[in-house]
């Protein structure tokens, strides 16, 4: 149980890093890619998938 919670914390931290990088980037291709990779992290965090 504790380990599962740690995984959600890790997921939240990585999602935060992805969002931060997404906001800082200026190339459109990188922006799209960041948005695509963000999706599974957010949906796992919201416990939807």
């Amino acid at each position, binding site marked *: 149980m504790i*380990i599962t919670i740690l*995984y959600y914390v*890790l997921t939240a931290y990585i999602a935060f890093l*992805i969002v931060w*990088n997404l906001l800082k980037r200026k190339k459109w291709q990188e922006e799209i*890619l960041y948005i695509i990779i963000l999706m*599974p992290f957010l949906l796992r965090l919201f416990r939807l998938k």
Partner: protein
Amino acid sequence: MVVTYIIAKVLKVSTELSMFAAALTGGLAGGVGIPARHIVEGAFTYLDIILIFITATLFMNILKESGGVAFVVRGILKKFFRRKSILFVLISLLLLLPGALTGAGSVTVLITGGMIAVVLGYMGISKPKTAAIIFILAGMSAAAPPVSLWAMLTAAGVNMPYVGFFLPLLIPCLFLSLITIFILGSRGKPVNLEKALKELPEAPQKMNWIRVSLPFLVFLFLVLAGRIWPHSLPVVGLPMMFMAAAFISLLLSPVKINFLKISRDTVHQLLPLIGTLTCVGILVQIMTLTGVRGLIAITTVTLPLVAVFITLCLVLPVSEAVLMWGAAPVLGVPLVLLFNTIGLNPIIALAGMSVIWPLGDALPPTAIIGRLTADTVGMKEPYSELLKYCIIPAVIIMAVGTLMVIFSKKLAFFTLL
């Protein structure tokens, strides 16, 4: 799908986004529109592997930043600079271990690849050659037992227990690794210690073997503990094991490290790889949904048997290049069932296939491990240089793998069953 992919590439769109575009048009052409559920479900396919990539790289980046990597390389050089052969065997084992334990060649590249690259550099081996050595050995480490994901996923797909694979995987992986390093490293000279030590970055004064090895020991302990006492300990999973190692190296670092910055940089450094994995997942999902995956599988397994054997060494790497581990359920399962039907030994045949599969990790469109290796080694030459040096060992690996499939019945004693 293929046309969209090519157009996107011509328009200089990255490989990852070209695959995403191919998936979108595949959905439209397949009459399923833009299926949000399937796109996002596909994006989930490699989430756990992405977590391993991020945490392992974070650990290695912290170790590098703390001066640990420089310290280890200097240590190895001082001890073994005269003996090339011993150094090669040692390097092979260091490269084989992480991937063998985790099933991921990427972990080998990330954990020991960088350090080994520096050592090989001081032996006068060029960066593309070094990258080729590390790439091939990383592939062999992934195929090596105890954890060989291709064999495991295929075995699971045909409801075959993952037993009897230890020797059929270990012997070829070890043998092919040593052959590779001795062939590609044959021109390597004993290290000029003085020059090397002068050029290498100095490790921080307070750095010592305990500070460097403790995070690795903790990681190794967690991996081994999970295997020795699997029913007394909770499931930790590789990402958390890497995080534990990362935090320990952060705590033990003699220099101050900005954890947030290094984390952000790690995610950005891995963007092409994570992006590829995510987009491959989406592409496979849409291919399955529209029946393209089935078309590929049925075309492959209905070829004449001789053609299957002859093309095996090409089909497997190509499937790996497109689908990565997805190749195991897509092609591995029907092929093993085909081999089983014609009376071959499925364990040896699958072991032979598992040795060939990792070669595809250097091939476009994904080239995940190939690109990761080139990146880790710091190769400035064109990527094709890496591929060029892979050819000879790759041909040997393909031959060994294919022969294992063809003569699987005669080699069945290796399974010890």
